[in-house]
């Protein structure tokens, strides 16, 4: 029944894991990478029918696609299984599935595999490097092998065997996991604002013999007031549509240089 052998599926899985940056562009983002993954499988399944293969390829290539690459493996596996059914117009279904799931999967995948893991493991790698230790870096390599290797393999194979129902049946577990990593990530972020953002004011008022350090006044209000305040201001600033991350970086560099020049920082 199936025209794809076990090794064909394995090869497709490997192409699928390596899909993100081939001809990535602003028009369709990851669609070329996806096309590159599925085309050899299409050629196996629909061998001899070049017209149909080209038509299907066009559909996959020209439709916008962008998701988180680990969660995306479920979509890829499911799309491959759909194509294997050889049903009429199945590519419409596969593309619709891809388009429908890329948003929610990206949200989920980003919060678990990118944002939260980056906070926790990045802070370990960074702090340990500052203490001349590579243990944190090694933990990051291990995380990479687990997330980008094993979990992708597992997601692709299960997406292929069970379709996306694989993930919808686990909805409660995923909800719990997302909430859990979010809580953990937020506690770490809260801790890292005062420990990483270092802002102190060396400026000292002097009236004759009496001196008053501004930093002492600030510390009396509560410790690490400035790091908290600056983070809050940037948080508000980034809410503006015109403010990009890169603009914010330039703004801070300029402000810091000016304040340092005046002698406040």
């Amino acid at each position, binding site marked *: 029944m199936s025209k794809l052998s076990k090794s064909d599926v394995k090869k497709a899985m490997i192409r699928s894991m*390596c899909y993100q*940056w081939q*001809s*990535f*562009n*602003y*028009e369709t*983002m990851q*669609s*070329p990478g996806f096309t*590159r993954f599925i*085309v050899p499988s299409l050629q196996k399944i629909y061998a001899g029918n070049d*017209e149909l293969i*080209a038509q299907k390829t066009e559909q996959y*290539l020209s439709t916008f696609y*962008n998701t988180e690459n680990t969660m995306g493996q479920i979509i890829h596996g499911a799309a491959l299984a759909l194509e294997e059914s050889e049903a009429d117009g199945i590519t419409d279904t596969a593309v619709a599935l891809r388009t429908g799931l890329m948003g929610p999967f990206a949200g989920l995948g980003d*919060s678990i595999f990118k*944002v*939260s893991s980056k906070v*926790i*493991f*990045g*802070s*370990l*790698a*960074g*702090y*340990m*490097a*500052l203490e*001349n230790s590579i243990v944190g*870096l090694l933990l*990051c*390599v291990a*995380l*990479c092998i687990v997330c*980008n290797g094993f979990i992708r393999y597992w997601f692709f194979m299960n997406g292929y065997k069970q379709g996306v129902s694989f993930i919808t049946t686990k909805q409660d577990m995923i909800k719990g996991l997302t*909430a859990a990593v979010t809580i953990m990530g*937020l*506690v*770490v*972020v*809260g*801790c*890292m*604002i005062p*420990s990483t*953002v*270092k*802002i102190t004011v060396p400026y000292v008022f002097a009236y004759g013999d009496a001196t008053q350090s501004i930093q002492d006044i600030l510390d009396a209000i509560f410790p690490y007031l400035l790091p908290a305040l600056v983070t809050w201001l*940037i948080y508000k600033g980034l809410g503006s549509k015109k403010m990009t*991350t*890169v603009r914010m*970086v*330039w703004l801070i*560099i300029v402000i*810091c*240089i000016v304040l*340092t*020049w005046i002698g406040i920082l």
Partner: protein
Amino acid sequence: MFTIPQIVLIILWFTFYNAFTGYTGLSLVAGGVVFNGLVTGLIMGDLATGFYLGGTYELMNIGLNPLGGSTVPNYNMGVVVGVAFGAVTNLETGMAVGIVVATLASTLDVLAKMVGSFFLHKAQNKVAEKDVNGAVKWINIGFWPRIILDAPLPLIILFAFGAPIVEAINNFIPAWLLDGFKNAGNMLPAIGFAILLRSMNLKGNFQYVLIGFVLFAYFGIGALGAALIGIALAMIAYYNNQKIADLQNSMGGVDDE
């Protein structure tokens, strides 16, 4: 300043790093900046600078995620250049150069993604001609402009023209400017945290940020300790939710509405 073998090794390493992680998808979610800092430090024979800038930039990089195809400062590029220049001048100069390069390098990322359209269109033309294999070939070629723009090209330019400029700057740069960059380096991680707070569903979860803040500000507990307390809080929340769900189930699903 730099020796030719050092320049060649650094360029080869960073090109390989970008090509390998970009091609296989085995990119480090975190730690890449430390990694690149250490390798460059090793090549330059200055591991201390590699550790220091790698760690410092890694912390700045923590909240910067290129989600949804967006562009953020490239601290991998920044750390390679920062450590290389820092090793031959001094730490402060390296730090300033690295931050500027990381921020400028983000422009190249935008350019690379724009160039991607050219290869998309080539591939689409091939598909229209029913040449699917030709299309895949174009898609594969379209992998390389990004690598070249992200790694060897800017490095070659920086090493060719940057060294005399940095040396000149280093001799004449006023102390307050270097201090300004140092202060900016200390403040920049705040951007990452602000972005994280924007992306992590702060509504109804602000108490966790507060707990983390108090842990460090009043008790001096660092990231690892905070992560452990975070796990505990996450488990409490998880089991509480489960209890509520079980309770609702046992009561026959309560009246919705």
